[in-house]
């Protein structure tokens, strides 16, 4: 589904990604871990098309297309979804109106008819249950005055509405208490199937207790320095990141 080859990127004058290689197939869950400043969020941002980042080398292929050539909206329309680490508050735009516009523009791109108001509401009600989010929250301005947990639940709600082929969760666990974490993780797990894939970007193991990865990759200094199964996450949790740093230093 997604093939990243030797991806390099910088922000301003600062080189952050130094040659990432990664292959994600349908049905898989990949966790990207690593110490602060290793480039985890940069990778997520580059994949979703954030313009502050300049790709300086390498390639990214998504479902046969050159992802790096696509505008952010076209990436979403092709099936990429990024759950933001810091979801943006947008006063004056309700989540419902926002989702309706997004969903229908994605459908239009794919040659599907726009959903009428009734079908949209039906779909929305169904997906609201997945993340245990209340409609009163969705009637309000997008994320405005939402708690940290509400914002993250709203991200997963949007993901449930748009049904992406590849979901990238950028530090979705940050700022969540244990109950909110469970709700968010449950939502992600329910949306998982053999046709879609998930990349979980996280600093800590605790989210991975709930969203169990097939592969764990450790990012350090803009490169994937170690990959393994879910047990690698547990090892990192107990040993910290220093032994990885030492391994890299020795090599």
């Amino acid at each position, binding site marked *: 589904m997604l093939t990243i080859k030797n991806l390099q990127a910088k922000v301003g004058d600062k080189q952050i990604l130094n040659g990432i290689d990664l292959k994600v197939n349908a049905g898989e869950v990949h966790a990207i871990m690593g110490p602060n400043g290793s480039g985890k969020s940069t990778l997520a941002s580059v994949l*979703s*098309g*954030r*313009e502050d980042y300049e790709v300086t080398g390498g390639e990214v292929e998504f479902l046969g297309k050159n992802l790096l050539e696509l*505008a*952010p*909206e076209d*990436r*979403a*329309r092709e099936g990429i*979804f*990024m759950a*933001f680490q810091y*979801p*943006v508050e*947008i*006063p*004056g*735009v309700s989540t419902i*109106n*926002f*989702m*309706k*516009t*997004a*969903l229908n*523009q*994605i459908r239009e*791109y794919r040659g599907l008819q726009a959903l009428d108001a009734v079908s949209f509401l039906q779909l929305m009600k169904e997906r609201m249950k997945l993340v245990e989010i209340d409609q009163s929250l969705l009637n309000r*301005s997008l994320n405005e005055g939402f708690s940290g947990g509400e914002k993250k639940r709203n991200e997963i709600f*949007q993901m449930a509405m*748009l049904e992406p082929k590849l979901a990238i969760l950028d530090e979705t666990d940050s700022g969540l208490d244990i109950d909110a974490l469970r709700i968010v993780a449950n939502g992600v797990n329910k949306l998982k199937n053999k046709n879609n894939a998930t990349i979980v970007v996280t600093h800590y193991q605790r989210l991975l207790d709930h969203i169990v990865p097939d592969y764990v990759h450790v990012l350090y200094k803009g490169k994937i320095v170690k990959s393994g199964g879910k047990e690698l996450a547990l090892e990192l949790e107990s040993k910290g990141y220093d032994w990885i740093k030492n391994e890299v230093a020795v090599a």
Partner: protein
Amino acid sequence: MIGLKMKWPLPDMTTITKNIKSEIIESYQQHSFDVAEESRSKAITFFEKTGMPGNKHEEYRFTPINKKLEQNFNWNKLNTPSTLSSADPYMIHELDANVVVLVNGAYSKLHSKIISLESELSVCSLKDAFQSKKSVVETYFNKISNSESDAFAALNTALWQDGVFIHVPENTNVEKPVLILHINDANSEQVISHTRLLGVLEKGSQLSVVEKSDSSGTQPVFHNFSEEWVITEKAHLEYCKIQNDSGNNYQITNTVIQQHDHSMLNTFILTLDGQLIRNNLNIIIDGENCESHFYGLYLLNGTSLVDNHTVVDHRKPNSFSNEMYKGIMDGNSKGVFNGKIFVRPHAQKTNAFQSNRNILVSDTSSINTKPQLEIWADDVKCSHGCTSGQLDEEAMFYLRSRGIGEATAKAMLLYAFASEVLAPIQNEKLKTYLDQLIAERLDKNF
């Protein structure tokens, strides 16, 4: 006066100012006005002293009005005839309203239609009211206007041709709003109209007014509109001004509103089009426990220049004022905002808030914004803030990352920014109408 002018180092500016000034004074001398002669003569004397505000004038620094007026008008002409057969194209059909139509500054009985009972609402030509409503007119006319501080207000007081008189008796809630339509018929030649309004809301009464100006034809229009509103004790005025005239239109509005004890005021000014518009809105809070909300929205493009100068003057204690003006500038348009808040020494426990927020969409548009607070009382709560910037890039990215195209995302954010100012409008039909104007201007298609 000439001696004073010689001090300016700009000889051509002096000439321009002098030409308009003498033409206007000549025009005053040539026309005969049946009513309000004393105030006219005082006003023209003031104008003779000050002349037109030049570029050095602090209140007109960003609005080069002289040059534009000099280029486009023959100042000797007043009372351009009109062949307007119907006011229908300018009507707001959604509103079930009393309609007052002024054509080239003259009250049109033909096109006006008052549907409220006469016991609830008096509306007539201001000229006529000098006879038929003599005592009210004499009590209030030209008592609060700024015709001895602003040149255009002075010109209006000196030269007004006709206008509207509105009077609401005590404890009357006028259910149907009053829609005032100014139509300037510039099909055959230029129009200069100095229009005047006097509105009085007696104790405990309530009124909603919508005012809209339009022009037809392509000749230049100079529309100088002055209004005085007196909201007496416990009365309530809702006021909405709509400026959406794509003609060759130069407009000055001078609005002075005086509030007495326990009165309530909501104003909203929507500006979408006009070559050059200057709105002076002065609110005099001359009573205790008053509430005053004044909102404005200017969505500009092309080469429009729109200047909102507002003053709220807290003269008595325990009142509340809240001002919010927002603007979006596109193309080569230019916005100007100046908001003054005065809190007089004994106006303790005043709460006064002001904000002016602007978005510049194009690189060639601009905004000059200036808050000015002068507070002499010590126990008050006042705040002000002004911002100007581009669209929030983080928000743009968020919307686009969900599959929303760039143009739609931009329209969504601009619309969300703009529509906030509609919140206080009570009349749902009016709100829908305004919302449509805003949506259309911002290419809202979602």
